[in-house]
């Protein structure tokens, strides 16, 4: 290693990890840390499959974040065009190009005449000089097939590929060689070259791009990786706003990470009660129902409640424009505008995102991460399997839920049920219901010329929940739930429920009147009796008085009589004295 290399270069063999991070979301996970350091990676793919972009992103990440300057050898596109393309991803190549990134224009001139054998040692000599000058650690040979195609014979091609490979290994550069390959043109020179290079390199990655039912699908697959385990499956990826984003199938380490017992409000008081306090924090909630059963409203109620708690929330609508959603919800008392204005709530109109289910998922992930969302509403997820996505939609839904759980996000998804299959049990769209923690089903009940909305909780893991159907009522005051009546085996809703309620109220009122009347009557009787009692008591007293008077009158008369007799005896001077008087 030359003494001209700056310190990062000399540190490399001893301390740096054996892999070089690419900075591509998902790709570093698949490969367990990036591309093999100091080795060569073959990147193959058809036209427009994203090879140049992946390779360039690898260099930009190295130069920007890893202190590893890089060289891009451009056989196909001019440096000017590469820089222009990179600028659309927000990579500031202009600043990097001054010191840490060198783009070498190596397009063969169109008027170039090839006469006889030649080799690439001129280029490698020039690169050697440049590597020493800037201390480059990473290098990309973009569209090597273009220059190799100029060589007169297959043996010369092999010789130059070997030369390049040896050169790369000797300099311990982490290199990417991109070649065009569709995989099915094995007979062509490029096909042969591709097959032979696959054996030579330490890591091979294949990019593919296909269109299924009018929807573009991009996939990435690591074909080989010497000395390392890797995810062998095809991983969908997309070209996002800031470069490549690879969808990682699973992040098993994180799935069980955050389990919370905390409850968060569903935004509907009665529903919280039915759910024994609300949804679990970090749970995935599925709201299914036909068109117009207030799925959006119910999910928006959750979003509003989250914002009221001050939690950053993202609402992804596949149905209509954000402003429309906000306006429509305001009519049922769900006011999201203040939260949108304050930045707490991010409304995304997903109709503006075109592409496969993968595209949606990755975009949603990126946006949610950028927003720092704790609560996420997707309305509805069923859109995913309506656009030629049947196969991938399921795995996308799985990953959505896995990801939300890993992030501790509370996720509310709505899903449109098929009007044809009327039985709720047969509708488990996307089988999200299998993975969802809580499944709320909304339904219409057509009865007595009315359609009324019914809500039932199909399942809710880890929660004692009500098994009754409730009537969902929307008014300008918001969403409320009301008890339904079961009469004669039928659930009554709407007017029938109201009639039933009125009837019960009438019966109740009548009963109350009767009771009151009875009370009054008894009061009267009681009063009457009391009055009678009083009269009798008075009479009794009168009788007693009379009786006492009588007694005393008798007594006094008796006394009078005896006194009178004595007086008469005295007056008459009677001799026949009484024994009593004689003694006195």
């Amino acid at each position, binding site marked *: 290693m030359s003494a001209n290399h700056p310190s990062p270069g000399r540190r490399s063999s001893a301390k740096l990890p054996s892999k070089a991070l690419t900075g591509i979301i998902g790709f570093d996970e698949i490969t367990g840390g990036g591309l093999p350091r100091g080795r060569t990676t073959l990147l193959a793919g058809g036209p427009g499959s994203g090879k140049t972009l992946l390779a360039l992103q690898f260099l930009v990440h190295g130069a920007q974040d890893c202190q590893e300057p890089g060289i891009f050898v451009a056989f196909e596109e001019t440096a000017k065009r590469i820089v222009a393309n990179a600028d659309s991803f927000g990579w500031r190549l202009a600043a990097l190009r001054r010191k840490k990134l060198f783009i*070498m*224009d*190596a397009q*063969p*001139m169109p*008027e*170039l*005449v*090839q*006469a*006889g*054998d*030649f*080799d*690439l*040692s*001129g*280029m490698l*000599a*020039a690169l*050697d*000089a*440049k590597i020493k000058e800037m201390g480059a650690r990473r290098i990309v040979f973009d569209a090597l097939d273009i*220059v190799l195609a*100029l060589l*007169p014979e297959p043996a010369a091609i092999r010789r130059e590929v070997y030369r390049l490979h040896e050169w790369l290994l000797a300099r311990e550069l982490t290199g990417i060689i991109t070649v065009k390959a569709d995989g099915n043109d094995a007979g062509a020179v490029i096909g042969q070259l591709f097959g032979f290079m696959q054996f030579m390199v330490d890591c091979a990655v294949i990019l593919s791009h296909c269109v299924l039912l009018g929807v573009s699908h991009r996939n990435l697959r690591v074909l080989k990786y010497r000395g390392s385990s890797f995810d062998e499956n095809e991983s969908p990826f997309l070209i996002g706003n800031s470069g490549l984003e690879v969808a990682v199938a699973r992040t098993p380490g994180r799935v069980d990470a955050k389990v919370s017992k905390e409850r968060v409000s569903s935004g509907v008081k009665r529903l919280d009660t039915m759910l024994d306090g609300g949804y679990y924090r970090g749970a995935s909630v599925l709201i299914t129902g036909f068109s117009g059963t207030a799925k959006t409203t119910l999910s928006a109620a959750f979003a509003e409640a989250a914002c009221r708690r001050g939690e950053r929330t993202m609402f992804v609508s596949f149905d209509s424009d954000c402003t429309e959603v906000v306006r429509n919800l305001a009519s049922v008392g769900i006011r999201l505008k203040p939260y949108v204005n304050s930045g707490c709530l991010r409304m995304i109109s997903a109709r503006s995102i075109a592409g496969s289910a993968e595209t949606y998922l990755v975009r949603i992930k990126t946006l949610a991460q950028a927003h720092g969302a704790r609560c996420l509403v997707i309305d509805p997820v069923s859109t995913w399997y309506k656009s030629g996505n049947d196969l991938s939609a399921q795995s996308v839904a799985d990953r959505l839920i896995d990801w939300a759980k890993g992030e501790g996000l509370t996720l509310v998804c709505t899903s449109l049920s098929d009007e044809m299959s009327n039985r709720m049990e047969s509708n488990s769209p996307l089988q999200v219901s299998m993975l969802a923690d809580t499944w709320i089903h909304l339904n219409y009940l057509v009865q007595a010329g009315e359609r009324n909305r019914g809500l039932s909780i199909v399942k809710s893991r880890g929660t004692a929940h009500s098994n009754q159907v409730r009537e969902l009522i929307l008014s300008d005051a918001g969403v409320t739930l009301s008890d339904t009546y079961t009469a004669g085996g039928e659930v009554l809703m709407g007017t029938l429920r109201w009639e039933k309620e009125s009837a019960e109220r009438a019966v109740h009122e009548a009963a109350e009147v009767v009771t009151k009347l009875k009370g009054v009557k008894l009061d009267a009787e009681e009063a009457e009796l009391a009055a009678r009692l009083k009269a009798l008591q008075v009479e009794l007293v009168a009788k007693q008085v009379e009786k006492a008077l009588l007694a005393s009158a008798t007594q006094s008369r008796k006394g009078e009589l005896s006194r009178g007799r004595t007086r008469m005896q005295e007056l008459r001077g009677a001799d026949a004295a009484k024994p009593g008087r004689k003694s006195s």
Partner: protein
Amino acid sequence: MSQAVMFKFRLYVAADALNSAQALGNLTALCRRHLPDRHEIEIIDVFREPKRALADGIFMTPTLVKLAPVPSRTIVGTLSQTQLVMQALGLEALAP
């Protein structure tokens, strides 16, 4: 009239690589035969002057550049296909 025209060549070689040596041999033979006393050949070894190769945009060796007369021409390879080389250099008329 063509007698007066001077041919200026620049040949980029990779040290003493076989194909570079072949190119030089083929070029001098061609010049001696068809352009006696009216050619100049400048030889640049990319290993000794890599910065120059980089600046000139030379990535394959050997590469022959005809600087004069205009239009300039670039030919890569050992120059073993004489017919083709003569054609490319605008010397068809001189060909046998």
